[in-house]
């Protein structure tokens, strides 16, 4: 099965669309870094608003590598799932379209093994993409902007808050956040694979995955009480931003951040469980459907 995985990874690496994802990420991150280097103060003024009337703040210190990475990850919220679906949506339907699916299943591998390898290949692609994002948005940003305390601008219910996390308390949060993002993007990968099982060409499942992600993301960000209560909990995109929970630092009774703490770990853990449940459900349906799939027509 390892040789099958090697073949799958080789096939992914030979496709130009794989590199479109890496090129797109590189371009977006570099543009952001350039823009913030040139005029990051304008963004900071927008976020600080009238806080500047009461406080003096060294804005050049606030725009640092850690802050940049957070801003970039926030922006890539919609783009990265689209890039993942480019690969995952093609997994089975691409083979069916080229007529190689039947050929592959004549080899001494059963359908479950083939689908599992397809999933593994899509998962590894997602991990490579995340590592590339981490290198560019975190480590390159740290090289360009340096390291300092991190400011988080947040709307919590009816309140807006500015959280400050000490420099030496940030890095582990990024590792945890990237780990969470890997799980969140794997949901997209499995959704792409699931839709791919039902199609005979690549375009359909890729477009369908992208549309579902876009629609769900838009609905997840609409602030209407009835949607908040009855719709959002049922959308997996609501939980995809759970990585931000690692940056919501715990606060003591005096209003001071507690180093190394999380404001609401149970909420992050529950979101993680829901995402993993989605992966299991999508994969389960994909395995079941692929067993029944007619590969002769």
């Amino acid at each position, binding site marked *: 099965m390892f040789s099958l995985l090697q073949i799958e990874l080789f096939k992914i690496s030979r496709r130009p669309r794989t590199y479109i994802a890496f090129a797109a990420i590189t371009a977006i991150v570099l543009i952001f870094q350039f823009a913030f280097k040139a005029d990051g103060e304008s963004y900071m003024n927008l976020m600080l608003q*009238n806080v500047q009337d009461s*406080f003096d703040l*060294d804005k050049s210190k606030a725009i640092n590598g850690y802050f940049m990475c957070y801003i970039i990850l926030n922006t890539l919220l919609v783009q990265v799932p689209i890039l993942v679906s480019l690969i995952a949506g093609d997994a089975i339907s691409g083979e069916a379209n080229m007529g190689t699916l039947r050929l592959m299943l004549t080899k001494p591998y059963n359908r479950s093994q083939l689908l599992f390898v397809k999933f593994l290949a899509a998962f590894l692609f997602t991990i490579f993409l995340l590592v590339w994002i981490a290198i560019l948005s975190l480590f390159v940003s740290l090289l360009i902007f340096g390291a300092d305390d991190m400011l988080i*601008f947040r709307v919590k219910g009816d309140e807006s808050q500015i*959280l400050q996390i000490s420099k030496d308390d940030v890095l582990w949060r990024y590792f945890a956040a990237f780990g969470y993002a890997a799980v969140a993007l794997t949901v997209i990968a499995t959704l792409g694979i699931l839709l791919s099982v039902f199609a005979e060409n690549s375009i359909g499942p890729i477009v369908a995955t992208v549309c579902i992600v876009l629609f769900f993301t838009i609905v997840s960000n609409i602030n209407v009480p009835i949607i908040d209560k009855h719709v959002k909990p049922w959308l997996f995109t609501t939980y995809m931003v759970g990585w931000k929970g690692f940056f*919501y630092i715990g606060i003591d009774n005096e*209003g001071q951040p507690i180093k190394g703490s999380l404001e*609401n770990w149970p909420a992050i853990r529950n979101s993680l469980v829901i995402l993993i449940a989605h992966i299991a459900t999508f994969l389960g349906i994909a395995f079941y459907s692929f067993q029944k799939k007619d590969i002769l027509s």
Partner: protein
Amino acid sequence: MIKNSTSLLLLLLLFNQQIFAQDINVLLANIKTKMSKIKDYEAEGQMKTKVVFLKLPVAAVKLYFKNPSKFKLKTSKGISFIPKGAVNVNMNSLFNEHNFTVIDAGTDNINNVKVRVAKLLPNDDNSNLVLSTLYIDPVNLLIIKNKTTTKENGTYELMMNYNKYSSYGLPDEILFSFNTKDYKLPKGLTFDFDDQSAKNPLSKTNKASKGEVKITLNKYSINKNLSDEFFK
């Protein structure tokens, strides 16, 4: 023996009355003389910020002062939110920077200390300072409380506790209160993760428009010929 004690008591009462009866200008002049012993100082301590929308860690701070009115408050590391009126925590600057007309506003009681109240009106019409009210402990020649109203940055209130450096008129603890405007980001701008914790009713009751900064100073280095570099 009884006669001696009665005389002593009478003397103390007389002294006490004299202190509270002395001219407010003389009292302020005495405080100014006491403070003029300080040519410069560097102080180290911690700054704790309590503002409803700001969640900031306790910051290590350094205060620098050089005669007549150079003053700087810096954090030793990290990003710092320094309140705009923080310069007012330094009483030395207040006396050296402005010329005042002083109004005697009587007496008051702060933390069981009987204080004299002096209202300082700047003579310069263009001064940013509108009014400064000082609550003075006339026995120890210490400013316990100060309320300052400025044109640009609103009203500030200072409460000061003295201990080791009271002979110089330098506080060990400063509680700086000020007004803040409400901070509101548009919903949806930050794509936040809703962890349901906002449903906690505490978050509503915490709302206030007053901010507080508590500066606890552990160590002063006085009259060490502080370089001008610190004020850049």
